[in-house]
């Protein structure tokens, strides 16, 4: 009797659950229908849409944003937020270049403290430093992460304006330029690099203990601590990695557009969040995949591409953009069948 009982009981819960899990498991694919629809619209709208040129172009334009999204997705999965990424993408290259460029002879003069090859390491170092400081303020002083990094966003942007005196810096080091504009095997290098970074990070989050720890920490930090996960340390590392990625995105951006502009990345954080969340990463931590986040970026980027191809009247551009974010959100909510709270 007791056994029958139990099977019956578990049947009640397991049966429907089973079905739900399958859906939920593909929650990070919930934007794929949106992408397909966009593809069809794009194809209908212009024959230029489905050309390698156009798609690679969209891909390359997505690279910098997608690195920020990669960074933010990891941070969100760990249950934190970092708004200052959008400033890091600008300030890290500026500081690196300022330390490296000679102190005379050009429109923008640096300090010439380091040799030219040091630009990339310096830029990455500045990124890591920013992440470390954020981590200190959030984890040691226990300040609210949202506002600390909001303050950081303003502060870093201001630092960039101050250091670059508001100018775009055009004489960027060759190493930046190479990474941002080289082509490998017929596709821009930046696309390859991004793909590899997403693969690496995605695999780490899927198959490595320390990667899984992010989900545990974001899901329930106390429980993670009880299970022996070094919560603060790992969170700190994630914040540092995030800023590092943003600094690297800054290198690609600088190389791609041929200069460091003073408002590089300005306003991107909204797009970063939009892409990450419509891609299925939870703002409350512990849920979502990097692949999902990637589909989020591609969706936003394709929207812009298709709207341009379709010749949407400039005045209605932004409105449509907002409509599409909300529609994508609705689709991804119902495709995954989960409430997003």
């Amino acid at each position: 009797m007791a056994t029958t009982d139990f099977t019956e009981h578990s049947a009640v819960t397991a049966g429907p659950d089973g079905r739900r899990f399958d859906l939920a498991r593909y929650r990070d694919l919930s934007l794929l229908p949106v992408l397909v629809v966009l593809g069809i619209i794009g194809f209908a709208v212009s024959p230029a849409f489905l050309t390698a040129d156009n798609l690679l172009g969209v891909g390359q334009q997505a690279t910098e944003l997608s690195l920020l999204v990669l960074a933010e997705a990891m941070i969100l999965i760990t249950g934190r937020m970092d708004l200052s990424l959008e400033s890091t993408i600008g300030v890290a290259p500026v500081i690196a270049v300022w330390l490296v460029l000679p102190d005379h002879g050009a429109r923008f003069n640096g300090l010439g403290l380091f040799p030219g090859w040091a630009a990339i390491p310096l830029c990455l170092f500045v990124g890591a430093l920013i992440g470390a400081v954020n981590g200190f303020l959030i984890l040691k002083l226990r300040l609210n992460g949202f506002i600390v990094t909001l303050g950081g966003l303003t502060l870093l942007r201001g630092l960039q304006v101050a250091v670059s005196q508001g100018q775009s810096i055009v004489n960027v080091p060759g190493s930046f330029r190479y990474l941002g504009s080289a082509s490998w095997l017929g596709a821009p290098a930046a696309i390859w690099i991004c793909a590899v970074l997403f693969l690496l990070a995605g695999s780490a989050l899927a198959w490595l203990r320390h990667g899984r720890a992010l989900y545990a920490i974001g899901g329930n930090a106390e429980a993670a601590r009880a299970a022996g996960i070094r919560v603060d340390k790992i969170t700190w590392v994630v914040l540092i990695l995030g800023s590092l990625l943003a600094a690297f995105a800054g290198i690609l951006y600088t190389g791609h557009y041929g200069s460091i502009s003073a408002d590089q990345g300005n306003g991107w954080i909204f797009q970063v969040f939009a892409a990450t969340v419509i891609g299925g990463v939870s703002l409350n931590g512990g849920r979502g995949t990097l692949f999902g986040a990637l589909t989020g970026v591609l969706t936003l980027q394709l929207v812009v591409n298709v709207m341009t191809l379709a010749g949407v009247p400039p005045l209605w551009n932004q409105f449509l953009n907002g409509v599409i974010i909300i529609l994508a959100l609705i689709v991804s909510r119902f495709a995954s069948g989960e409430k997003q709270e």
Partner: protein
Amino acid sequence: MADPSPPKSPVVEADGISKRFGATIALSDARIAVAPGESHALVGRNGAGKSTLVSILTGLQTADTGTLRFDGEPAPAHGDTDAWRAKVACVYQRSTIIPALTVAENLFLDRQSSGGLRPISWRRLRRSATELLTEYGVEVDPTARAEDLTVEQRQFVEIARALSFGARFIILDEPTAKLDARGIERLFTKLRELQDQGVAFLFISHHLKEIYDLCSTITVYRDARHIVTAPVAELDQHALVEAMTGERTRTSAADRDVTEPVSTDAPALLEIENLTLPGFYQDVELTARAGEVVGLAGAAASGNVQLGETVAGLHRPHGGRITVAGRPVRTGKVPAALAAGVGFVPEDRHVQGLVPQRSVAENATLTVTDQLGPCGTVLPSRTRAFAQRMIADLDIKTPGPATPVSALSGGNQQKVVIARALATRPHVLVAIRPTNGVDIKSKESLLGTVRQVADEGNTALIVSDELDDLRVCDRVVAMFHGRVVAELDRGWSDEQLVAAMEGVADLPDTKEGHGHH
């Protein structure tokens, strides 16, 4: 006192442990020693410092003072989690299950693979998880997400995880609070098995019966201090309760003289007709009269909790009627239920009971904000006065009505939830597991309060699977699989009730004829 002399060095020995949290002293010069293979009970009232000791023994927190030794060696350094895990495993009082992760991953959290750089083999992990779970007779899909499990299944995952480390010393902090009778039985079988293999336990529970069943030694804490350690045989229940409370035991509410049976012509205050909530219960009929305390017994999936919640307006049933004091109540609306005179003590105070950062006064008056001032205002003076009365009536231990409720001990938090339910002076009090996680002394007073409500001419419905809760009832209705299967009048035996809850009741005094199916 009468420490049993250990044959070899104890698996754990803590001495002179003190710990404060800001202003609160959680432990003061406390000690404990657990011998190898021993089942050691740690008891004390809510807030006595038990869980704090647990967090110190498992390396989650460091003590302010004191020494801690495992197997005669000093404790590992703070933060060296691997070393701690080799010494001690623990089922914590607060759930450490991560809802969004699968069962398999929860079981092997932070040890999914053997090395930081070695990739996880999910297949192997699933297989190990299945093996582990079958040992406990828990049939859950290891790929299910933990959030989709029932509370009980989750608790078993938690237990299985702690026991699977292979530690020689295991701490269980109120592991049975979320289990029904059969679950407890299964757990105890497993624990005895481990006991036979020489594993030592530190077992915390507010159910003294479990302690007498399982443990050989008892340590009592009171107000952050060590009071006594003695073999079970030397400490009978009276002495134990006395040690816990520091007072001579009076007659408890549960043992008090049985009141006159409620006359059948007392007006029916609560009538449930034909109520159905698909997936939980079907065609339930129930009547409760003025002055009556009715128990609604049932194991985890019996639907009794959902029935109680439906009366309180949390669910909208698909069919049937609820009538309170002769008037039908709109279902599925808490305000309607409140207006009709239903008071509600929810199942889990952390989830549905309390607004943790708000004050005791605010929490206690949450249901009666319309009575605290004219024209929709809430006057602080009246709120305070109201809360003060509640604090006095229910004997809530709090520095004052303005204290955030999160700073209270578990038992006192529960009292605040009851205060909130009583604030409306309900005709019908629906209390779901009202004594969940509450110490024996508070349990008595809480149940006494419920009884008192009924004695004042109202009715109370206690929804629970705990026999202690049900003992104060005039009448117990047992549910199984969403149907009422038995009705027991006062004087039932534990076996009768347990059998009824398990759906095997076939008793002479069964009034409902559904029986088992």
